[in-house]
């Protein structure tokens, strides 16, 4: 586990709070490494993230690949309007839907 991701788990759910403000070439490897520890429902929390570039998108896609191979569900929460735009441009939202944090209440 790295300091870049703070984990919160309950039942089959893991919320991975990304603690780095930049999801970029520098932080990508440490973030992607966490895809080895996914749960049946995994949620990436972007509340602290102010910047994502294509190196970061590649790291996030490792979670998508792992989720698809394992039959897990993957969601994103607290995504800024700018990053929602970028995720739509590359069609990331097809594979990692953006949900409201309140939607997790049903799992708690």
């Amino acid at each position, binding site marked *: 586990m790295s300091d870049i991701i703070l984990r919160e788990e309950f039942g089959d759910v893991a919320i991975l709070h990304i603690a780095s403000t*930049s999801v*970029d*070439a*520098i932080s990508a490897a440490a973030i992607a490494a966490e895809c080895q520890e996914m749960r049946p429902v995994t949620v990436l929390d972007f509340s602290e993230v102010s*910047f*994502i*570039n*294509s*190196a970061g*998108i*590649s790291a996030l*896609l*490792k979670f*998508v*690949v792992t989720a*698809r191979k394992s039959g897990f569900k993957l969601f994103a929460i607290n995504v800024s*309007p*700018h990053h929602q735009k*970028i995720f739509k*441009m*590359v*069609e*990331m939202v*097809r*594979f990692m839907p953006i949900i409201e944090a309140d939607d997790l209440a049903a799992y708690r």
Partner: protein
Amino acid sequence: MERVELNIPSNPIFERVVRASAAEVGSAIGFSEERVEDLKLAISEAVNNAIDHGNRREAGKLVAVVFEIDGEKLEIRISDQGSGIERFDPSRRVVDEQSLESGHLRGFGMYLISELVDHLEVSTSHRGTVLTLRLYRREEP
């Protein structure tokens, strides 16, 4: 015309320096917050390309970034000291099942740049590659 010039080593950590400078320049000339975010992402992609594909992270090779502000126009030139690129592909690149299955998880950079700036030019030769990005200040809807 006002001009800001940076030269960074071919180490990805210094891309963050350029990005921070871009944010300051964009804000200084009155870009909206969303336009500044577009600018930061486009420059980040261009600088990372110069570091990785142009200079191949070779120590001693620099990436030069020049910001030129001319009224409503911001032009940025990103130059590397590599041996040129064979292929430049700004075509639409999205996540799809095929790329996920094959593990092809990269290659979004040029597409993002082309979508986020108003004008993009690429000039390449055996002496290096120069990307010229142009953005105009515009009213938000």
